[in-house]
């Protein structure tokens, strides 16, 4: 399952990021494989979506979110 498959409120753990540039961009926010992210909300036109990494909220497009594999955090 990837980031775009989950719903608002879900807390997830990243299992892989299959795009080198995206991986590096996310790293700048302190986010990498094993980091946890929270889905915050979708936006009025349905894309991008808003997620929280630690205490930073970022918007990410669906097309990029699909490259981030995640699983639900217990």
């Amino acid at each position: 399952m990837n980031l775009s498959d989950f719903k608002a409120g879900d807390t997830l753990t990243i299992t892989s990021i299959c795009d080198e540039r995206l991986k590096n961009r996310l790293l700048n926010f302190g986010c990498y494989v094993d980091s946890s992210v929270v889905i915050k909300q979708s936006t009025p036109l349905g894309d991008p979506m808003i997620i929280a990494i630690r205490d930073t909220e970022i918007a990410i497009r669906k097309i990029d979110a699909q490259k981030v594999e995640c699983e639900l955090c217990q």
Partner: protein
Amino acid sequence: MSVKQIALIGNPNVGKTTLFNQLTGLNQRVANWPGITLDRVSGTYKTGNETLEIIDFPGFYSLEYGEIEEQVVINDLKENEYDCIINIVDGTQLERNLILTSQLIKLGKPIVIAVNFHDLAKSRKIDIDILALERLYGIKVMAINPRNQSGITDLRSFLNQENFQSPNPVVKIKDETKGIIEQIHSEIIPAVINNQCAVDFETTTNKIDKIVLNRWLALPIMFLILYGLFALTFQYVGTPLQDMLDTLINEQFVPWISTAPILADNSMLMSLVVDGIVGGVGTVIVALPLILILFMGMTIIEDSGYMARISVILDRALRHIGLSGRAIIPLISGFGCTVPAVMATKGLQSDRERKMALMLLPFMSCTARVPIYSLFAIVFFPGYEIASVFALYLFGVFIAIIIGLLLKTFVYRETPSPFILELPEYHFPSFKSIFKHTLEKALGFLKKATTVILAGVILIWALSHYTKGLQYTEAMNESLLADLGNILAPVFAPLGFGTWQNVTGIISGFLAKETVVSTFGVVYNGPEGDVTSILNNFFTTRSAISFLVFTLLYTPCVAVVSTTLKEYGRKWAFIIALYPVAVAWIVSFIVYNLLGLFM
């Protein structure tokens, strides 16, 4: 006397520009970073016999993995010998901000850390131990607050010292970014933030976002805010101020200067000053209120944090033509006046996007073109004036979309980088900072734009007031401009309006679009300069439409070209002066010939 160079560095949205404005006076210099169109803003202040120059770097998150633009800036930081770096960090998001800090310290250059929003962090029970941070990194750390002077004096006196020390960290900073992140998480943050009760409370920002990003409310709210911005600029404040200035110039200044003996005796000099210089430069000065109001509004939207939300809301709609949501501001401003719109493109976030927006702006029909539209609409579409003018506006947008798609497909076709945009916390903007920013923008425009505009104005004045034999004349049909019109007329024949009168009008329109109508008044020799009753004799409906399409699309005016020169340099000034003419010619040609099938 020496000048110390201080680099001001930090993540985006941490109050960097506010600090910059607090440190420096009203003497900014804006240039471009080498090879790119990104603003390089620097400002100075004096203490004793020393001058300090602060360079406000664009915000970035990391020294590694930057996009192309960030790399230019980062290389500059690494290669140039700045006397000291001020690294401003957001106290409420310390963990993320310290990634850049650790990387900067690894560079080994003298550095001081300013922890911003220290009070706000405290009120959220984030208790930052400044001394512990100093000890771990082996550098000076101080707390500042954006809305008052606290910490600024300390920072200033720190920057006053003779020799800056390189950092001497106690922790051994890791090499890899990932290692740095883990080290901050496990070693630095636990030592620096005393009460690590990770409270998951709902901030004011979360509450506001629930409303302004709500599925149903987001678009109406954004519409209201943008409508407010543009109504203030182009209707309620900017335009009335503009009219006042205009009246002041034409009813006070012009009569006053006309009484000057040197002018009263010499009709040529009088015409040069009154029709040429005052007329031309006047149209530029009256653009000033628009720039002031628009930039004040834009800065408030930007500094408050709402601009990032606009970007997010409109991303899906604008990405198809290769733009991000925030491009909506320059694009809509273009319907008012292209000059501030060109300036507003500098606020976009990538080189590619700035250039794309710049290329589309000439097709957003500015208000100066309305007199042309209404003249033709009254004559050729009686009863459908509003509908026909509206159709022209829509046609301009349609052409902009086509050009956007073409540019995206053929010119700027590199794969777009992943779109990741931070949604910063909402803050009350600092009005001192807004005021300063706006004033700098307006003054910069006046200083740099006026020279080129003056040259353009005098050129067109000379063309329309001198004959082939270089004799001064007041009859435009004997002028060089009319000759030029005759020479160029065949170029416009395929568009259906290739007469010297029309071409003369088009050339004078480079000065300002309103001039086209007044030029028609002269060259068509209408009763009392009014051509409404006789325009029918010179245009068919088909050629009128073709002419309207041409005026809709061709180069806005010399003020736009010179603003582009100031913001983007010579190459882009040429592009903006010439490429819309080519687009206008091609589209008018197509329209004229398509109409020929029916008319």
